């Protein structure tokens, strides 16, 4: 090969380096910009915007952020988990029942134990999906009823509580009202960055992407696809447990109602799709999902601040989600046409 050709080829590669980064993370960068714009707009919309509003948005987003990160990892691996909301419910009730009035040590132990337990339970679900060959959506639909039922068994009616330190950890305030907004923001970002690093820079994460992209090819390339699937569900379970702990910290009680879990599951899927993770698997980034989770939580107060009734607000929310997805779809079509 001549040097001229070589130079041309390396030139192509160098230009592709930053373009590749942009193309890879374009959607995630877009939704983060959208989030910043929404916050600025919201700040001008309401008469007083300050630390209280920031901490309110921050802490109320936490459960959905965790749940959506977990869902994103599973969807990237080519699955989907309808039971994450029910796992949130189960964690929430276990925590509220066994943390109520206990010393800090017990509270911490209960928190760590529930995270490990949910990772184990959902990892088992991943194992069952591997072995049985039953579609993810069917298995997790079934387990969602099981976990919801167990939640009612642990805590038949709303109640229970948690330690002030636990409330501070997720809300920045021992009473759960106001407080330092850096705490919930950090609590959201630290797991997000950790999971992002695992998904993009470790063999486990890259195997999960490969599995979601083409499971047959990933297997033939010598990857341990069963382990990758199991791990993605275990991560999802651990994140759902974090979401449950955040819920008990924010509300100060446990709530076993089925609709809470079902809503959380649907919201997590909405956040994943809006965040640029294709439901077909193998693409997208965990970081974009964090931004769309916050956006979904912010829509309600924004629409309320605009004077729109709650019933109408839900319609508008749906229209917005459909609209954003169509913009994404059209952008993809245009890019394909340009290539």
């Amino acid at each position, binding site marked *: 090969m001549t040097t001229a050709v070589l130079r041309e080829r390396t030139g192509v590669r160098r230009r592709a380096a930053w373009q590749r980064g942009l193309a890879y993370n374009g959607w995630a960068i877009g939704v983060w910009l959208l989030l910043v714009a929404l916050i600025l707009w919201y700040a001008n919309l309401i008469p007083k915007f300050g630390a209280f509003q920031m901490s309110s948005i921050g802490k109320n987003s936490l459960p959905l952020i965790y749940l959506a990160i977990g869902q994103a990892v599973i969807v990237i691996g080519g699955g989907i988990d309808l039971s994450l909301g029910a796992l949130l419910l189960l964690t929430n009730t276990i925590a509220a029942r066994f943390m109520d009035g206990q010393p800090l040590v017990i509270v911490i132990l209960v928190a760590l134990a529930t995270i490990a337990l949910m990772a184990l339970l959902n990892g088992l679900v991943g194992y069952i999906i591997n072995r049985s060959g039953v579609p993810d959506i069917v298995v997790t639909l079934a387990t969602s009823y099981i976990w919801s039922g167990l939640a009612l068994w642990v805590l038949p009616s709303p109640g229970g509580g948690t330690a002030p330190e636990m409330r501070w950890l997720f809300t920045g305030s021992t009473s759960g009202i106001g407080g330092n907004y850096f705490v919930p923001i950090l609590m959201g970002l630290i797991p997000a960055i950790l999971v992002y690093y695992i998904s993009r820079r470790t*063999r486990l994460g*890259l195997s999960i992407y490969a599995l979601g*992209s*083409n499971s047959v090819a*990933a297997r033939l390339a*010598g990857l*341990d696809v069963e382990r990758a699937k199991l791990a993605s569900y275990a991560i999802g379970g651990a994140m759902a447990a974090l979401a449950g702990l955040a819920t008990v910290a924010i509300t100060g009680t446990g709530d076993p109602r089925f609709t809470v879990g079902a809503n959380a599951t649907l919201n997590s899927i909405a956040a994943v799709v809006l965040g640029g993770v294709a439901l077909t698997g193998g693409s997208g980034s965990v970081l974009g999902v964090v931004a769309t989770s916050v956006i979904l939580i912010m829509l309600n107060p924004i629409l309320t601040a605009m004077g729109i009734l709650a019933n109408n607000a839900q319609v508008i929310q749906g229209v917005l989600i459909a609209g954003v997805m169509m913009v994404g779809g059209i952008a993809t079509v245009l890019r394909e046409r340009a290539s």
Partner: protein
Amino acid sequence: MLITHRLAEVLHICDRATILRDGRNVTVLEMAEADEHRLVEAMLGAPAERLAPSDRSAIKQSAGEIALEARALTSRQIVRDVSFSVRQGEVLGMVALEGQGQERLFELLSGDRQPTGGEILVGGHAQRFHSPYDAVQQGVVLVPGDRLRALLPNQPVRHNLATPLFNRLQRWFGIPADEPQRVSNAIDRLSIDIRAASQVRRLSGGNQQKVVIGRWLVSGFRTLLCFDPTRGIDIQTKREIYALLRELAAGGAAILLYTSELAEIRLVCDRVLIMHGGQIVDEQDAATATESSMLTAAHGLGNKREARPA
């Protein structure tokens, strides 16, 4: 109008042939006055040296230890009692009509499926492959017949090339530093066209096949199983793949090559096995094997293999 890669079809059926190269209308040939050599030259855009069988005397001597051996390998009625061995530095060809058990045999050898009888030996030791993961760990790697079963379609080229390395990574502490270098080496060695590198499904068939093979160059291997690697790809890439296979064998790799193009046997292989009805019915020396001798055996006619030493 007929669009095809198969030159024989053009020679037999067509009156006129238009050759496209790099998106341009290169040549129009009247078939009355053209032969295969002219077609090839027009497709390559350069005077083509006629492909010569590689010099095998040197190769024979360098042939080393047995890398992969099958003993009485059986999978229900589809593969029956198949025994053969491939040595390091050797390209072993395989020829069969469609559906004679060759797909299943490759599935067994690559760990995609477990045999119902017989055993596979790697470097003289019996192995049980529970999944392709086990086979890859033993250095037995597969280039599948269907590229859709080999590629991660929406992932970039580099990611596809690095796939087998994911097993080699330290589990939690990121990607080994030599990964980009290994991948770049493979891209250069195979001269993969990376203009459409962001998603591997946008590459041409030939370039996709290079990525599938290049993946194993990145990771390293001892035995390469190639299932019809040149099906449906352009003539330039075909020639590159022939040269690459010989080069890999010269470097000490053992290669098992199933092909549906009988001409490739003479160009690439040292020996050729012929399969029929799930069994290996004949073994021939690639230098002396002719299309008719191989086809006769592939139809289940002619002498059985028992007469020959394995």
